[in-house]
């Protein structure tokens, strides 16, 4: 039995080594995603294009505008002569934030019932609105106690990621996204390809058992998954200085569990798809909700209950929790029993479905 599993593994690895595109994707997908998410995508928005209309023109208004720019959130283009021009520039997409300082700015500052200035924000772009609102808390420059606003009631301390770097938020969960993508697609495609090319028809008439066939086909991908995990961690640490606060062993155990779950998902897809193209479509069909609902990009708590339920079915949701817990919060795997148990449940159910559906027969 072991010899037959080994035979299937050797064959699978040989084919994989010859399939340059797939082989390249094993390394290419993690690298590309790391660079994309690490460098290009930034949730901590800075340098929004902005313009100002300063109808007050006092030293206080100029000082305040200088403070806004110093926050780094906005970068001012040449000022507008009036509000109409400012609106036009926002309409035209030239700026996404406009600051309007009315002529009676100084008087409004003293009158605590009225806001001294107005912020115009392009609500059509995600994140811009949220970020621009943070400008509202920039205090007025203090001048010997005469002006100024009270200091904020709450002081924010960002634990585990004090510099609020996106890479730190992204990298641990990105391990899951990358594994999910490659494991599901590669296994589903590897099995469906054999059906499509007629290899399966021959294999069925040999003494190899379905269990041996599955094990031999999936085991190489377990190693590939662990390799990808290491790659993401290494690149994360070298380029983006993402620390692993928890135990590395725990992280690899969690990754192993997740790899098993995604491979099984790939197996289920392979029993549903007739062609490789269908397998890709199905894999993609599970991929998008995984990325959007797992808490990888958007906070899980803000989603409506239905979306949270769907997210519970997706293995990525639980792995994101595990990975962030171990990598950032330094939690031991033993303390993360909830998500780990849910992954095990997913694995068992998916395996049962795949076993029931995968028969050594053509019909």
């Amino acid at each position, binding site marked *: 039995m072991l010899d037959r599993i080994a035979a299937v593994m050797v064959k699978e690895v040989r*084919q994989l080594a010859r399939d340059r595109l797939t082989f390249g994707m094993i390394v290419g997908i993690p690298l590309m995603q790391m660079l994309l998410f690490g460098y290009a995508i930034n949730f901590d928005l800075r340098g929004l294009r902005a313009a100002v209309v300063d109808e007050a023109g006092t030293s206080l208004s100029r000082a305040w505008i200088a403070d806004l720019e110093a926050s780094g959130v906005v970068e001012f283009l040449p000022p507008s002569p009036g509000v109409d021009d400012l609106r036009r520039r926002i309409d035209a997409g030239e700026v996404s934030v406009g600051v309007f300082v009315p002529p009676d700015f100084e008087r409004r500052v003293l009158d605590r019932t009225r806001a001294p200035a107005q912020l115009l924000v392009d609500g059509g772009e995600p994140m811009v609105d949220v970020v621009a609102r943070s400008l509202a808390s920039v205090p007025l420059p203090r001048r010997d106690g005469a002006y100024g606003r009270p200091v904020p009631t709450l002081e924010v301390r960002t634990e585990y990621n004090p510099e609020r770097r996106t890479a730190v938020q992204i990298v641990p969960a990105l391990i899951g996204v990358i594994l999910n993508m490659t494991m599901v697609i590669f296994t589903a495609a590897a099995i469906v390809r054999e059906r499509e090319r*007629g*290899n399966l*028809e021959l294999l069925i008439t040999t*003494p190899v058992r379905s269990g041996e066939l599955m094990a031999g086909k999936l085991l190489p991908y377990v190693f590939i998954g662990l390799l990808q995990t290491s790659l993401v961690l290494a690149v994360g640490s070298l380029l983006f200085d993402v620390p692993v606060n928890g135990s590395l062993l725990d992280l690899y155990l969690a990754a192993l569990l997740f790899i098993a779950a995604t491979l099984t998902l790939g197996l289920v897809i392979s029993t549903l798809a007739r062609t490789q193209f269908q397998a890709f479509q199905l894999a993609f069909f599970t991929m998008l909700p995984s990325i959007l609902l797992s808490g990888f990009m958007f906070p899980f708590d803000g989603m409506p209950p239905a979306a949270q339920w769907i997210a519970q079915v997706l293995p990525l949701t639980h792995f994101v929790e595990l990975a962030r817990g171990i990598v950032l919060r330094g939690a031991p795997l033993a303390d993360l029993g909830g998500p780990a148990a849910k992954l095990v449940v997913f694995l068992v159910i998916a395996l049962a479905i795949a076993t029931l559906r995968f028969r050594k*027969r053509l019909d």
Partner: protein
Amino acid sequence: MNDVPAIVARGLTRRFGALTAVDHVDLSVPRAGIYGFLGPNGSGKSTTLRMLCGLLEPSDGDVEVLGYRMPGEAESLRRKLGYMTQRFSLWDDLTVEENLEFLARIHGLRAAERRARIGELEAEYDLAPLASQRAGTMSGGQRQRLALAAATLHRPELLLLDEPTSAVDPQSRRDFWESLFRLAVAGTTILVSTHYMDEAERCHRLAILAEGRLVAEGAPRQLMRDIAAAVVELEADDVVAARAALQGDGAILSVAQLGTRLHALLSLDTPEPAARVRARLAAAGVAAEVHAVPASLEDVFVAATGFGSLSSSAHAAH
């Protein structure tokens, strides 16, 4: 032992939804010989073969292959069975050697045994010069040799070949059949499906399938002798006119063209078949040379598949 047939099927039936692909087929395939399935596309040849090796479950009927009841004991049969699919089903991205080695390991051959057997097969099927070539880059004939080598790797008692020569040149077909005869002499039972008459004629025994039903069965010579029709051959300059002249006679069951010749099949109770054809042609003013001839396998096929009433008498002949 050799008296017990390799395959016995009774009432073998397979339905795909509303379509009945194989309809109550009875088979008895003797050991150590080449048994052919002759039939057009869609006649149920592949489906029957697939049921015999456990790839498909019969909807109805009993099958016993080498003493194993199918599909229940399919796994036990696998060690004694070689199957060559209609489409090339080895791995394009593996070399000849790697393909054979993989299948040898799957069949449980030990390392030393494996080396020896692969060497033997490479010599037998002239694959040694191609050993490190990838299967995907080989010609149709080379692939077919590889597929046969792979199917016989574990010295199976029974070899099922599903239209094995549909993608190869005539010389490769001849060589392929030489290999099959060598295997049969060595005691292998071979079941081969084909739609080529010349190949069917080489088989020791033959079953003709049409629309999922077994319409004739027997040795090719016997089938030709027992054909349920009188065969008249005519050679005419104007084949089209000759053909038209034979239309509308109830005794003339079919007319088939072979180059400048025509083969007319007449019902057996026609007293003087050649004279009757001659008379019709003379009446129509068509000049032709007419004489009665022994049936070819093609005539047998036409008789067996063309007229439902004739198939039962051909069947009853055995």
